[in-house]
């Protein structure tokens, strides 16, 4: 115990006096702080967007309601009713933006054909998408391992090359103890730095303390420990400090750059991105089938420049009923195609997730995104919500249209509203955490088991 204290005390002293360490810690800290603000600004942008649409929805409804005089046909109000179905960012999304910048996070929905409304895209700068987000997850996954390598690569080799190792070991302490204590000390330093950044993030982004925080910290601790395990193994191979640094950077490249990108390449080859022409073609073809009957009539009506107010004759009402039925079968026809591609993407995602177990960095990214609900799964859950809500909205108006009920003032309050239900515990993160735990134990186990090649 006393030995631990002594070594840690002098390690701290050496660190404080080392310019490399001071610069390193400052750089990592500043990058971390920047990443927090960056993540917040990106997520705030999305939040603002949602607030704006919500406001739009409210004013839209207010105007409709204000213009409402007598009871009228339900389809007229239905056509004017847009409802926001959103997938608001969780507070953890500030720290791990994940795929949120790629997937749409809201649909402004009407009661008619879902297929025509669901294929939205987010606008974004592709060059920015290409380099990815500079969020805290990036700093933890990419930058921290480099910092760990920078302060730990020569943990024993520096003593050997500096000539202090023999003098040190002439004392009643073994090289294993020295290595272990030094690693432990560095681990604490690194984790504290990460912890401080986490606290800052909690304050800056006003994140609530909850179970996710524990899981996030656990993941971070496991990931860092993994890298210390690698350092342990390299240190025990007892090469020169230059070779140590080279090997560690190679490990970093392997786990952070090569394995994830190669998995991705593999996925691209086996699931090549498709222009999805079948779905696009069906969407327009079937749509035309519906409209070819009606479109002409309206165009003729329009060209007569009769007043723009909706006609109330029964032929129109019958048209509406017919169109509604056709749209419903349209959605039904397209359903399998949508499901096909959804399934394809989910399969791809699932295989990617399984293959991610080859790289601790990919696993960690997955866990962070999963905890923050910013992964592809979250998007597809959202799509399900959209479908459910659309059905609710559609049923509401259809009931009135097909029962020949008029829309009354009181009905405004009955129009369904969408309420986002946050997922409580991202259960699918547990498996990845388990994988990460196995990686870490494995690496650490091998590292601890190994003997020094030389002293």
């Amino acid at each position, binding site marked *: 115990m006393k030995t631990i204290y002594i070594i840690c005390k002098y390690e701290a002293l050496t660190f404080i006096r*080392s310019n490399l360490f001071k610069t390193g810690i400052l750089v990592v800290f500043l990058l971390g702080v920047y990443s927090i603000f960056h993540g917040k600004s990106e997520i705030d942008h999305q939040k603002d967007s949602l607030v704006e649409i919500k406001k739009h929805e409210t004013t839209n409804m207010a105007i409709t309601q204000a213009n409402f005089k007598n009871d009228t046909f339900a389809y007229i109000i239905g056509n004017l009713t847009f409802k926001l179905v959103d997938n608001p960012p969780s507070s953890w999304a500030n720290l791990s933006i994940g795929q949120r910048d790629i997937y749409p996070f809201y649909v402004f929905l009407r009661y008619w054909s879902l297929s025509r409304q669901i294929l939205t895209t987010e606008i974004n700068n592709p060059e920015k998408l290409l380099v990815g987000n500079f969020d805290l997850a990036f700093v933890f996954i990419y930058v921290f391992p480099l910092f760990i390598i920078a302060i730990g690569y020569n943990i024993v080799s520096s003593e050997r090359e500096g000539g*202090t190792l*023999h*003098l040190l070991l002439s004392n*009643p*302490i073994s090289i294993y103890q020295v290595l272990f204590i030094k690693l432990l000390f560095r681990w604490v330093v690194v984790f504290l730095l990460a912890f401080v950044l986490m606290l800052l993030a909690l304050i800056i982004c006003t994140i609530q303390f909850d179970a996710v925080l524990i899981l996030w910290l656990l993941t971070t601790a496991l990931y860092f420990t993994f890298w210390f395990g690698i350092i342990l193994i390299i240190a025990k191979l007892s090469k020169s400090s230059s070779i140590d640094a080279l090997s560690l950077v190679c490990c970093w490249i392997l786990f952070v750059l090569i394995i994830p990108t190669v998995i991705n390449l593999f996925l691209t080859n086996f699931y090549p991105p498709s222009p999805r022409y079948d779905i696009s073609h069906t969407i327009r073809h079937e749509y035309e089938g519906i409209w070819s009957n009606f479109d002409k009539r309206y165009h003729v009506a329009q060209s007569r420049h009769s007043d723009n107010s909706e006609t109330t004759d029964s032929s129109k009402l019958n048209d509406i009923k017919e169109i509604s039925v056709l749209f419903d079968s349209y959605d039904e026809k397209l359903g399998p195609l949508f499901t096909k591609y959804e399934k394809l993407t989910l399969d791809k995602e699932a295989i990617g997730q399984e293959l991610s177990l080859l790289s601790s960095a990919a696993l960690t990214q997955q866990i962070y995104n999963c905890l923050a609900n910013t992964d592809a799964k979250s998007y597809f859950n959202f799509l399900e919500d959209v479908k459910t809500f659309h059905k609710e909205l559609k049923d509401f108006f259809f009931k009135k249209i097909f029962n020949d009920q008029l829309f009354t003032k009181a009905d405004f309050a009955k129009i369904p509203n969408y309420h986002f239900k946050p997922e409580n515990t991202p259960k699918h993160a547990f498996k990845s955490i388990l994988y990460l735990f196995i990686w870490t134990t494995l690496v650490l186990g091998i590292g601890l088991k190994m003997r020094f090649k030389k002293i």
Partner: protein
Amino acid sequence: MLKTKHLTKKYGERFALVGLSLDIEPGEIFALLGQNGAGKSTTINCFLGFVKPTSGQVYVNGLSVVDHALETKKYLAYIPENVMLYSNLTGVENLEFFSALAGFNYTKKELGKMLFKVGLQISANDQWVSTYSKGMRQKVGIAIAIAKNAKALLLDEPTSGLDPKASNEFSNILNELAKNDTAILMATHDIFRAKEIAGRIGIMKEGSLVSEIKSSDITTNELEKVYLQTV
């Protein structure tokens, strides 16, 4: 106190030590002479446990080094040929660190005293070791060894890089330690100093002890002659 029995160390096909048997009593200074590669440093490394013997035994204070690697080091102090220290710690801090590892808590004053005793100028005490010369580092190394209050002292060319005055002072310190029952094993090239301070002198060649001489039985010139004949 320091004892080896038929100690043999093989590196691949090459023998570094061949059946070396030594026995150094408390209070005795034993000097090992020999050319580079004769096995002097390997012997010292065997006592420290850095080198695992191929066969034979190494004992410190009656304990086998192989079986009690950590405990035997409590009785040992070691000064390498070229003392290297933590360069961004000061002399005092280095001394404090190593003595603390050995289990001693000295006050700043006591540490200063020890450094003064080995002849380090007081102004250097609180400077970073990176500014030290080789001799200054060597002196701190000696202080570290003294601070450990060890029962046995292992010296690997301890006086290399010391000026004659410091060298002389070092000899005095060794004599003083020996008087307090410390066993000292010193590997050296310096025939003159070996004759002057050691009680017994061993000459090594190709890993074995070829002759062992009591220093009181021989003059420096004769010793030199024997040395040259042997190697």
